[in-house]
């Protein structure tokens, strides 16, 4: 993970561009599998909307895909998605931003934490259709690929505030909220206001240290 976080060079750029460029076509290989599984018709309906050139695939007997306009990390996205699609699934499965993680998918672990209009929000407990007109920021949007890391990202690297790294994007998004809300004055406050983000590796002491460091730099 340390390498990954430290890698803000060309590799990251190309990866992001690649993901951005292929997001709309990523649905193609999925079609075969979803078409073979009628029970997954809801998911398939979303891809159908993106593939107007596939008239032989009639939408399943569910509500038609909904035309959505989302603003993610400053970029506009127009998608045709099943109305049930959560913001998390829209980000990961349809826009190609897989930094936000799916842990429990029930609002208990915090791995999916993103910012909506600057406030930390659980992407798994938010419908994509409900955040139209709002600005969504994900871990990918914290720092430009050719710029230094966000102070919170750097602090997590400096303090080795993770082991497996799966909860890290959510921890970092939540930690930024924690500092901006003014809840990082002492370790107890940090622990309380980071309590929605679970870490199975129990890197908590290092996470608290990272938040302390980043607070100084963010407010300095």
């Amino acid at each position, binding site marked *: 993970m340390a390498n990954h976080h430290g890698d803000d060079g060309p590799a990251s750029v190309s990866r992001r561009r690649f993901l951005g460029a292929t997001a709309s076509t990523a649905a193609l290989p999925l079609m075969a599998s979803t078409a073979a599984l009628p029970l997954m018709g809801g998911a398939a309906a979303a891809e159908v909307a993106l593939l107007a050139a596939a008239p032989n695939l009639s939408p399943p007997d569910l509500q038609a895909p*909904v035309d959505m306009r989302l603003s993610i990390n400053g970029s506009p996205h127009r998608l045709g998605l099943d109305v049930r699609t959560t913001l998390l699934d829209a980000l990961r499965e349809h826009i190609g931003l897989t930094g936000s993680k799916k842990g429990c998918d029930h609002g*208990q672990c915090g791995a999916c934490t993103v910012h909506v209009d600057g406030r930390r929000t659980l992407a798994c407990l938010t*419908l994509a259709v409900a955040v139209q007109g709002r600005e969504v920021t994900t871990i990918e949007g914290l720092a430009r690929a050719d710029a230094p890391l966000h102070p919170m990202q750097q602090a997590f690297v400096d303090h080795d505030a993770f082991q497996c790294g799966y909860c890290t994007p959510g921890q970092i998004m939540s930690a930024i909220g924690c500092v901006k809300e003014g809840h990082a004055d002492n370790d107890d406050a940090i622990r309380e206001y980071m309590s929605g983000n679970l870490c199975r590796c129990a890197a908590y002491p290092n996470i608290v240290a990272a938040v302390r460091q980043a607070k100084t730099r963010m407010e300095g």
Partner: protein
Amino acid sequence: MYAFNYHRPASLAEASAVLVANADAKFMAGGQTLLPAMKLRLANPSDLVDLVALRAELSGIRREGDRVVIGAMTRHGEIATSDVLLAAIPALAGMAAIVGDPAVRSRGTMGGSLANNDPAADYPAAALALGATIVTDRREIAADHYFLGLFETALEEGEIITAIAWPIPKRAGYEKFRNPASRYAMVGVFVAERADGAVRVTVTGAGASGVFRATDFETALTADFSSAALAGVAASPEGLNTDIHADAEYRAHLVGVMARRAVAAATA
């Protein structure tokens, strides 16, 4: 999650009409309880009526004389940090500050929580203790007549909470024993001495039928509003929940502990 029709009405009348026309429709405020329930297929609304477009109209916190009026779509995070509320009813602001976790508090709303009336939710205890008034699109309901049981309220078909009016008490305190994972109240006790001197002690998270008044505690505190006055008062385990987290006896014990701490907080 089962499929549903999504609505985003721009007016209260329009929102209410969708519910009246569709028996299985549901309002969604912040969605922090409803969406998990839908994911688990415990809730299966035919139509989801997202009230987000009414947020500007239905949110905000303002003092009106001897009460504080909070818009139904006001989020827990906004309530917890409201200067108006921190000055007038700090116990209520403090309650909002420990609802769920910070991310939940940035979407979940007071009106949504009261409409849902989860037996372990926090606000019902405050509403019943302080004598809040639930204001809807068609009438005002006193808290005493609002909570009817587990997830049951006096709200009628298509009725929407627009605001909650909170009388400012002389003093009040809330303490909850949190489930460390869900942050719901295993037992939460709200104590209040109202402006007219009446004392209320209410309990959430423990009752098998939702929020209730602990009248023995009220009697003791009416005579002497101090935690010492509760020394010999015990709650009965009868009618309390037993689940994997705590049995009825333990919850009854916690009612006493939380009540004494809440009084201490109120008199601090």
